[in-house]
């Protein structure tokens, strides 16, 4: 199961945001997309999901051009976690998660008992059981983000695309989301996420892609891609990448920005 971009140009008509991006993601893998504000991460994601038409090149969903697939076919393959947002109506968390089942329903159908069970399982998996009956618009931003991930799990595809899943989350919730991403990948799903924090890429990614000025600057293992030079190139700041010892003799790389005293 594979989501693939081949020489993809993306953006809007008359306004190209990025070009010539080639990357692929298979089930069970975590690919982390780094890039500064305005580098086109969200636009790239929307193009990969077929929500925006590609401006050149193509997106292949399991080998087939995304433009040739119906929306529900795409949705059964790849799910999308947008940045946590305010909903417009006071749906319950359970109803929001249940919306993830839509691609599995006929146009005129409503969720069945089975769909409700799948949604409930996704809620339990995100440890949101105590919030299932709460109003989505009244829970915290971190809880909403978890509910949206639960919705993507209920969608039951092969790949999840997450747009800055840790933006606006407190430290604890950021770590929790990272843990969930790893668990989801271990369960066999592919995860494509964008983030502003290179440390998160070290924490959970199998591979890292760097988007700079609309082009794929680097793509590879975290240790190879995230270096002082590459971070300075795309963010324009001095960063030291170093390794710190962890429990059990392991080491983990972290990034420390150098700020003039």
């Amino acid at each position, binding site marked *: 199961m594979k989501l693939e971009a081949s020489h993809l140009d993306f953006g809007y008509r008359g306004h190209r945001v990025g070009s010539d991006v080639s990357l692929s993601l298979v089930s069970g893998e975590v690919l982390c997309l780094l890039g500064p504000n305005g580098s086109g991460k969200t636009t790239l994601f929307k193009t990969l999901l077929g929500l925006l038409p590609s401006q050149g090149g193509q997106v292949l969903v399991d080998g087939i051009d995304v433009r040739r697939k119906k929306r*529900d076919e795409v949705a059964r393959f790849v799910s999308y976690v947008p940045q946590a947002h305010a909903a417009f109506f006071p749906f319950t968390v359970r109803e929001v998660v249940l919306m993830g089942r839509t691609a599995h329903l006929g146009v005129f159908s409503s969720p069945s008992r089975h769909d409700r069970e799948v949604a409930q399982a996704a809620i339990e998996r995100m440890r949101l059981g105590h919030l299932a009956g709460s109003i989505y618009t009244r829970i915290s931003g971190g809880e909403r983000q978890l509910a949206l991930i639960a919705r993507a799990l209920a969608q039951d595809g092969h790949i999840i695309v997450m747009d800055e899943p840790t933006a606006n989350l407190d430290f604890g919730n950021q770590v929790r989301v990272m843990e969930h991403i790893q668990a989801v990948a271990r369960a066999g799903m592919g995860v494509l996420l964008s983030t502003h924090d290179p440390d998160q890429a070290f924490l959970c990614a199998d591979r890292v892609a760097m988007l700079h000025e609309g082009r794929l600057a680097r793509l590879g293992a975290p240790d190879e891609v995230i270096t002082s030079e590459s971070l300075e190139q795309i963010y324009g700041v001095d960063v030291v990448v170093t390794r710190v010892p962890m429990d059990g003799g392991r080491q983990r790389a972290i990034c420390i920005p150098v700020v003039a005293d």
Partner: protein
Amino acid sequence: MTSARAWGAGALASAMLAGLVLIAFSVGRFPVSAGDLLSVLWTGLTGREHGLDPTIETVVLKIRGPRVASALLIGAALAAAGAAYQNMFRNPLVSPDILGVSAGAAVGAVLGIFLSLNVIAIQSLAFGFGLGAVGLVYVISSTVRGHDPLLVLVLAGVVVGSLLGACVALMKYLADPYNQLPAITFWLLGSLASASPEDVWSTLPLMLLGLVPMWLLRWRINLLSLEDEEARALGVETGRIRFTVIAAATLMTSAAVAISGVIGWIGLVIPHFARMLVGPDFSRLLPVSVLLGAGFLLGVDTLARTVARIEIPLGVLTAFVGTPLFLWQLATARRGWQ
């Protein structure tokens, strides 16, 4: 929201509706008691003699019955269309008029009155112009690309609506001030005083034609309340569902406005009450909106023909009753809206 509570709200609304129907028959110049009403209806079903005054039968079948039935139908249609539009436009302040259906119907009806046509021609013109106005808005919005499709729809609706409003104003200005102008004014204020059995039979299929797709699409309509791209990522062909909802709502609203004239407030206020009772899930919101809308218009219409010596125009009375209700709701139930 538990389903037990939803059923409770539905049962309560149904019971109130049945009570309102009985009250509506029992007040007015010729009061019809519940027993008489049932006898007449029983005769209609079985052909057995009821032995009542034939005047009562005429009142039930030809005058008050059609009026009650069209109040129920129109109230239900406006509330259903309003509930669907509020979901689709993600906005609590949207009414079924937003895409210009009432403005279009008004131009059609006023044109008919201006040309001194008969009632059926006036109703047909109102219905046709209502559909045409929304069709025009839809075509304009689908030719303009590169913006949020919903925003373009609303803007096109507002612009076309104001143009049609100007057409109505022009015809009022040119109309004969002794015969036509009062008729135009009366139509624009809405009334069910002249509802006939034919009105009910011609409107009923159009209402059902609108209501059935809304009910079938009830789950997808929930998802229309998400951002367009988010709903598409969840597998919804938003463009098609939106087109179907607009077509269904327009059919119902046009048919309603064609026989009643312009009646505001119901499509705006009733879905709020329904949402407060049973939450936003359209599979509960739609039936409860239908029941409450039918009940509200029947109640207001009963007041309109009984509280004063003359008929009070419905458009006036719905606003007088609807405004305090709406403000009360705005003050007390803002939670849930972001």
